[in-house]
């Protein structure tokens, strides 16, 4: 009887959080899976049950989803291999307690605080092929022929990188702050012990600090990958109406089809994004799993 009451109390205390979790998170995902099996030509009418047809159709040239996935993976790779090393480098540098540490910390973190729309507008002006900062700088150096006449955003060969650059730049400060907190948390005794053993500053970072902040690096990698796969706001500013832009990503297609009478297709995109993000999260966790050097677990 006593146990029964205890379980009931626990259940009642957990109920509000559980209801919120199921209602706000689990239900929309299940609903997305359900919707992806129907046509949903209008918001209100599910239309015919089509099974997995929406998933198969997605890879037709008409929807061009394969291209969007490749772009999202490129962005994820750039985030992991350029953005995070940059963040780690800055975190290690600031973590050593250099002069003006607080100032630099604020400067690097500032882009995170600015709205993505503002950043998009700002970079759009920088890239403007007529009066942009970039074209004017190259003109001043007599190098304007290096830039494509249609502008970096208008040329399919350069547009992808031109759009991804500010996306990566914006979140360098965010990951830097996470890693900086980790670096500051490393015990000074460990550093001192390594230095007494003759380790250089670089060796201390490589063999002491980085292994200590591995859990934070893992979280940063998961955030960077899932954030890249879901990226929308900044890219939407550049994409305008998003028809045939060479930097289309899954979220752009999702929003477009959701509001253009193809709800089933939009839901299929949402489900695939969930699977991809979840899959990458598992993969990263597996890669960072501590393994016994002698083979046994």
């Amino acid at each position, binding site marked *: 009887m006593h146990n029964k009451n205890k379980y009931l109390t626990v259940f009642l205390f957990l109920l509000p959080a559980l209801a919120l*979790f199921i209602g706000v998170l689990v239900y929309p995902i299940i*609903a997305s899976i359900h919707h992806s099996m129907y046509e949903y030509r209008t*918001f*209100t009418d599910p239309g015919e049950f089509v099974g997995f047809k929406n998933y198969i159709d997605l890879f037709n040239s008409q929807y061009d989803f394969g291209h969007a996935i490749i772009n999202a993976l490129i962005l994820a790779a750039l985030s992991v291999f350029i953005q995070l090393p940059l963040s780690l480098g800055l975190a290690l540098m600031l973590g050593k307690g250099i002069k003006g540490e607080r100032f630099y910390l604020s400067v690097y973190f500032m882009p995170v605080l600015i709205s993505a729309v503002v950043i998009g507008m700002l970079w759009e002006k920088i890239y403007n092929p007529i009066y942009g900062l970039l074209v004017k700088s190259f003109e001043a150096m007599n190098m304007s022929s290096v830039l494509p006449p249609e502008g970096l955003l208008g*040329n399919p060969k350069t547009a992808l990188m031109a759009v991804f650059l500010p996306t990566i730049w914006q979140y360098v400060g965010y990951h830097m702050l996470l890693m900086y907190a980790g670096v500051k948390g490393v015990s000074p005794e460990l550093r001192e012990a390594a230095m007494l053993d003759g380790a250089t500053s670089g060796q201390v970072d490589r063999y002491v600090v980085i292994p200590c902040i591995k859990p934070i690096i893992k979280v940063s990698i998961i955030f960077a990958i899932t954030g890249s796969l879901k990226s929308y706001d900044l890219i939407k500013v550049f994409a305008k109406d998003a028809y045939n*832009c060479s930097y289309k990503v899954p979220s752009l297609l999702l929003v477009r089809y959701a*509001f253009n009478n*193809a709800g*089933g297709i939009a839901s299929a995109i949402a489900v695939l994004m969930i699977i991809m993000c979840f899959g990458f999260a598992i993969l990263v966790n597996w890669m960072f799993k501590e393994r016994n050097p002698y083979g046994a677990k």
Partner: protein
Amino acid sequence: MKMKRLAAWLLAGVMALSAVGCGGTAPATTPDTSKDNSAATTTTTTDTSTTTTDNSGSNTEVTSDEQVTLTMWCIATEGDSNRKAYEHAIADMKEKYPNVNFEWEAIENEAYKTKIAAAMAANEVPDIFFTWSCAFLGDFVSQGKVYCLDDTLAKYKDELPENMLGNTTYDGKHYGVPTTMNIVALFANMDLLAQAGWDKVPENYDELIQCCDDLVAAGIIPFGCAGGETWCVTEYLEPIIQKSIGSDALNDIFLGRASYDNAEVAAAVDTLQEMIDKGYFDPAGASLSNDDVKQNFIDGRTAFYQNGTWNCADFASEEKAPGFLEKVKVTEFPVINSDKSKLGQLIGGPSDTLAVSASSEHAELAAEYAAELGRLICHYGYLDGCGLPAWIPYGDTSSINPLTQTVAEICAKADSYVLFGDTAMSAVDKVPYLDAVAKVYGKQLDGAGFIAELKNAIR
């Protein structure tokens, strides 16, 4: 332990992706509304209440001195050509309907399309909303979300010609109040043409090509087009197709009565690409917005600008384009194939429309208000040069700018109209169409590729 780990991962994954999960479409528990809200008795069921509509569709009776709030969404933002017309019309309406507390909100064009679609799904549409005619409004009408205006518009039959209501009539019933009508026209900066040795606007296609060659030789860019806004590309492509294959053939394609599998359409697409290849288009346009491209035309960077005639208002405005009215002329795109097309075949027609939500608490009053407001927007819009009137004009119209007057002359001689493609098509067909148009401008599809892609994609 494994279960615990799996559960932890599931939770972490779900937490991380919550935004994606919410990105799906709304559950199918939306209101069940009748298609025909003018029927004898229409029941509208919402999540929280059930209301009954009588013959006139009015949900709530309003006495003349009772204070009522009506809301409206439109696209007349600060930068929109129609903004002044809306402001004047709303000011007049406040005097005429002192018992109506009118609240309106203007949303940018592209964002508006998304917002109104989402609001329709959630049944959170304002009493009156701006819409484009034909398929755009038709999608909402077929969902039973729009109030039938038959009774209201019957009172205005002497002022609003029936032929202006064709694009907002579905199954013989009227669902929209048209404001102005517009066509796609070719604007020319005569100062730049003069620098290339032209003292008149090219009158046929050969002359246009010669003029473009002369402009390029003089170091002047002939055309400006915003590649990032695909509707701007259609303003070039659709007239070229129309003047190559004729209005009837294009209309049949847009309305799904004929396939895109047409060699003449492919040839027309190739014509546009030849113009791009010859350097007739400003390359910078590929990454610019329409506002930038229009400003470049006003500033004298490009000699021609092909777009909607609502631009007459801006080109005639001393505030937005000082001294530009003396330099600019307007004409229609010349005929490319005279066996199939002729002058007077135009892209455009009555499209800008006000409609009333079927779920409005004061639908009857909103309908009357929308009709009066539409009439006034039409009047002031016509005076400002934002388009030609869908309603019979009244008052002194002598001050109308010469560009709009020329457009009126072009329309007076019109042979036929084909509505803008993205308005004529349903939302489902519009997406692959605009995608293919954008690919044509980006040189990723040629004419053959264009028809091959669309003949399968469009129903």
